[in-house]
């Protein structure tokens, strides 16, 4: 036996695992892996719950002046950011004369939404999502939730916003 053969054989004795066996995933291993994924999903669910209860979303506080009524023409919009926050909002002057303020982030993947004048629809160009400009509800497309809304009110000619107190239907 040559020296090389001897080395090869000893090597195989030390590691008696065939390459094919080492790369094969048995159904037993697959079942264990599925249980592992299941545990991961449970932890994720717990994380979402803990975050929602321990670190709740900050509410808009106080009243904020945006602009005067005549600054926005009918069908026009104006973007604004509240003090101490980075969330972009848009103020819309609807054709019906109402003012509405919404977060500018689409609830699908946070693209910027814009108001389509004359249609009553807030549109998201990324995945063709549409929201009702009167209520913020989803009309079409992939967004899972309505646009978050601020309450608009007036002091003489000035437009102010504050946190919307939601009226639950039930």
């Amino acid at each position, binding site marked *: 036996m040559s020296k090389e053969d001897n080395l090869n054989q000893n090597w195989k004795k030390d590691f008696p695992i065939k390459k094919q066996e080492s790369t094969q995933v048995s159904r037993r291993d697959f*079942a264990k892996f599925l249980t592992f994924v299941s545990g991961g999903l449970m932890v994720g669910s717990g994380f979402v719950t803990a975050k929602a209860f321990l670190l709740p979303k900050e509410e808009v506080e106080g009243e904020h002046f945006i602009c005067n009524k005549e600054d926005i023409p009918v069908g026009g919009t104006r973007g604004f950011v509240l003090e101490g926050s980075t969330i972009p909002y848009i103020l819309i002057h609807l054709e019906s004369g109402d003012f509405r303020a919404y977060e500018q982030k689409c609830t699908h993947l946070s693209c910027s939404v814009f108001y389509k004048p004359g249609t009553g629809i807030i549109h998201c160009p990324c995945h063709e999502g549409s929201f009702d400009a009167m209520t913020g509800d989803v009309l079409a497309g992939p967004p899972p939730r309505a646009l978050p809304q601020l309450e608009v009110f007036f002091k003489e000619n000035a437009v102010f916003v504050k946190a919307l107190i939601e009226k639950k239907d039930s």
Partner: protein
Amino acid sequence: MSTFRKSQNSANPNKLNNILSTLIFILILNVSIQIWLLYASLNNALDNNKEILIPAFIASAILFFIGFSWLYYLPKGNFRRK
């Protein structure tokens, strides 16, 4: 030495196959339900509906423990490598 399990297995060699397939099927079902629960609770958390979160987490945990205890029935196979 022949045992009860061994003779059972040799009388019906497909049985282990069925057990394992059923087990994996149920695990996949559990994981799908958990994915759905996680998706729903995420959406509701972002929408500030908190009442669904804890029941969803408990359901997810129950499904995990069901899957975990299923592993007890994972067959070892007829032919053990020495």
